[in-house]
Structure formats: structure tokens, C-alpha cells
């Protein structure tokens, strides 16, 4: 992974310097030491970009987990509690409530 990033970055750096020379209508390889500097900077940039991308994804996962947990706390726990209350209320109000309560007393 690091090797491919280094190679791609070096190619990018070399390409940037050659493109810059071409825009100025100079020979592509004029001042070759600038191409070496470009390759070095490109390799460093590509490696740092890949590392940064990995870190960004990890940080994003943490943020999304935090958001998911906040949503669950806000909606699912409340909803669960309200479902339980509703079902309890439904039991008390239905026509089976009297025999059921008698059954509960018997079992107690």
C-alpha cells in the first residue's frame, strides 16, 4: 500500500513539474533537479494523504457511532418505554382484564 502510494505520488510530482515546464513552453526535463524535488514532494503528499484518509474514516466511524447512540437513546429507549406502557394499558382495558387479573391473583 505504501509502495503504491509512493510510486503514484512520485509520478504525480514528476508529472506536475513536467506539465509546469510544458505550460511555460520549456523543455519537459529542464532543470531535472526540480523533477526530483517534485517526485519527493509527491511521494510524501500521497503517503500522507492515504494515512489521513484512514484516520478520517476512523474518526467518521466514531462520530457516526456517537450519532447513532444519541438517536437510539432519544427514540428507541423512549419508544420501548412507551410500547410497554401502551401494552400494559391495553391489557387493563381489554375484556380479558378481569379474568387475567383473577388469574394473576390465583398464581400469586
Amino acid at each position: 500500500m505504501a509502495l503504491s502510494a509512493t510510486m503514484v505520488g512520485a509520478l504525480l510530482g514528476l508529472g506536475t513539474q513536467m506539465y509546469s515546464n510544458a505550460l511555460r513552453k520549456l523543455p519537459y526535463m529542464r532543470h531535472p533537479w526540480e523533477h526530483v524535488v517534485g517526485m519527493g514532494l509527491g511521494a510524501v503528499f500521497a503517503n500522507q494523504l492515504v494515512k489521513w484518509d484512514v484516520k478520517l474514516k476512523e474518526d467518521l466511524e466514531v462520530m457516526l457511532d456517537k450519532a447513532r447512540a444519541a438517536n437510539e437513546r432519544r427514540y428507541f429507549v423512549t419508544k420501548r418505554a412507551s410500547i410497554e406502557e401502551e401494552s400494559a394499558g391495553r391489557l387493563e382495558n381489554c375484556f380479558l382484564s378481569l379474568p387475567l387479573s383473577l388469574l394473576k391473583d390465583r398464581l400469586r
Partner: protein
Amino acid sequence: MFNLFLAVFPEIFIINATFILLIHGVVFSTSKKYDYPPLASNVGWLGLLSVLITLLLLAAGAPLLTIAHLFWNNLFRRDNFTYFCQIFLLLSTAGTISMCFDFFDQERFDAFEFIVLILLSTCGMLFMISAYDLIAMYLAIELQSLCFYVIAASKRKSEFSTEAGLKYLILGAFSSGILLFGCSMIYGSTGATHFDQLAKILTGYEITGARSSGIFMGILFIAVGFLFKITAVPFHMWAPDIYEGSPTPVTAFLSIAPKISIFANILRVFIYGSYGATLQQIFFFCSIASMILGALAAMAQTKVKRLLAYSSIGHVGYICIGFSCGTIEGIQSLLIGIFIYALMTMDAFAIVLALRQTRVKYIADLGALAKTNPILAITFSITMFSYAGIPPLAGFCSKFYLFFAALGCGAYFLALVGVVTSVIGCFYYIRLVKRMFFDTPRTWILYEPMDRNKSLLLAMTSFFITLFLLYPSPLFSVTHQMALSLYL
């Protein structure tokens, strides 16, 4: 552990650098001993160095993962969104300053104050991005705007530049007044200026029945003030004249930097502070109108800078699609759109500056550029295709994501208008390409060599535009984080 000094050190550094450069410029430019030297390039390089050091100071501060910090009496906020917006702003400023050096030599532009004002406006924009109160936001907007009024008129020997500065001053002051009026109405109706308090008061106010004409008018006026500053239709009238009359580096700066900071402010104030059906409708309308006008009006232009001005109006319309959605995907697509738009615009204006040396002003003057400088013609073509949204370039990716965000929230008409106006826009972008490759100019223009700064900037931005689609993951992740941190 939050360290206040480290958090604001970038802003402190850039303010100090601005004042030191101002004193340096005043002392040495009026020095008889040194024969009154022109200091524009000298101050320019020092200004560029200051911006890069500020960028390093900002980047060196650890990004605040999931933790936002308020400071200075809760007037400012530092979080992921602020952090990355400021880095992006400083990169754009550095790119714009690097385009200016050849311009100073070619046009014999002697005003070192130009760079000082750019740095001061950058400082204002840094504060604008981190502002978390209506008062702080307004003061930062004014610091930025006042500098812009002056640099628009910086070419003192040009009537067009003076006219542009005067128009910008009058219309900009008017829009700032409307913005302040809106802020005062919000304060009068709610008693709050802090965004957290406004969020609690204004969220869902249209639904709960707590409607107030003061709140409604306040939000409307603030929206109008912001829409004016981002040159959205129907508040765009000033943009083409000012973009055309100002010196080209100023136009480049005006096209890029304020849009980043104003959109960041819009997201803070409206997405976080107050978001309702009325605001969404306003932005829907402005987005559609900007896209349509940007596409149609640009077709009639004969000058390159005016065409780019209308193109930027159209792009603001596309970017407002992301805001109109009101979803996390919408905000993410808005941020991606701004980033790619800024890089494309830097590329376009670097080319325009390179061509200005050869006195290219009209579209017709671009004829046979492919014969005199084929690589520059190819670079310009790539930029135009990217503006048009043709795959696999970066412009296509930004429009793709914006339209998908619109479809995701059910705004089918918005996406349809976006697609149709993109197709119409292809006409005038490809017309430029046709001129360069297939037409002959009215008068043959000799090529003058470009300087290294512009060529490197063009090379980097062109590679980004061309190769972005191969590795878009970092930008997608960072914009997703920024969108989430607005809420968390």
C-alpha cells in the same frame, strides 16, 4: 484540554503579520535612501509566507474530534467544520496570492496595500467561519467586506476599477445594512444572538405555532443579505460589472474566498440556527433562478471575465441545491461543490491572468490559442469541460453528488433544472474550446511566457480536476465529518 491561545494563534499570527507588513511597506516604500522601491512583489511574497505559516499553525492544532469548543464569551466556536473550512480558505488565499506576482510586474502595479488588504480580509473570513453569534458574524463580515471594497478599486489609474469599487461599496453596504436589520429583528423578537439559543427558539417555530412576523422578517432579511454576498439571483446584478472592472487577481479572490466563508456562515446560521419551510423555499427559488440565469446570460457574453462571472452565478445556484435539501447529504454535497468550484475557478483565473499578458480580453481573442500554446489550450479545455460537468472530471462529480442529494430529499424539480441548465451551460463552455481549436483570431497575438507560480498552480489544479474521480475518498470523508460536526 482546550488551550485558548493555541486555538486562536493562527488568527493572532495573521493579524500581526498584516500590521508588520503594512509598517514595512510604509517605511520602505517612502524611503529616499532605497530610492522609493516598488514593494508589491516583496510584500506579496512575505504575505504568501504569512498565509502558509498560518496554515501550518492551524493544521498543527489537533483537530477536535467530536468535541466543539466555544471561546471568547461563547462568541466563537472551534470544531471540525471550522477547522477544515479555515484550512480550505487559507489554501485558496495562498493560491490566489501566488497568481498575482506576474500581474504586479506586467501591469506595473505598485500598491503593496493590496496584499495587506487581502491578508486583513482573510483574517476577517477566518473569524467569520468560527463566528457563533450574530454580532461576531456581522463584525467579521464587515471586516472582510470593507477590505474587498478597497481592493476592487486598487488599480487607481483605471476608471473601470474605480467604478467597480464604488459599485461594490454602495451595493455591499446596502446588503450589509439589510443583514444587520435582519439580525436586529431576530434579536428584538427573541432576545438572543447566540446560535445555540437561536436554535432552541427557532427550531420548528413554523410548526409549533409560535410564529412571529419579526422572526420571519428577520430570517428573510438575513437570507437576503447572505444571498447578495454570494451573488445569488435575484441579488446578482453587481457581480458581472464588479468582476469585470476589478483587476483580475481581485476578481479571482472575490470569486473564491468569500464564497467559502459566506457559505460556512449560512450553514451555521440557517442549518443549525433556524431551518424551516420558508427558508427552504427561498433557497429553492434562488437556486433555480441562479442556475437558469447563469446558463442563459453567459451565452450572450463576449468577454472572458464576464462569462466567468455569470458562470460563477450559475455555480452558486448548483451549490445552493445542497443547502436547499436540508439534509446531511445536502450539506456534504454543498461542501464538495464549493471545494471543487474553488479549484476550478483558481485554474480558470490563472489561465485568464496568463492570457492577460497577451491582452486577451474578448472570447474572440482566444482564437488559435491551440496553435500558439497547445498545452495551455488543453488546460483551459479541461477546466471548461469540468465547469460543464462532463465526466470523468471533478466538476461532474460535484454536480452528480448535488443532484443526488436533491433527489434523495425529494426535490426532483431542482435536480431536473440542474441537469437541463448544465446541458445549456455546455454550449458556452464548449464554444470557448471551439474558439481555441478551430477559429482564427481577429489579430494574431504573440505568446508571452508564463511565470513559474502560475504554471505550478495550473499543473496542480489541472491534475486534481482530471484525477479526482480516481480517489475521491478523502474529500468525501472530510466533508461528511464537517457536515456531522455542524450538529454534534
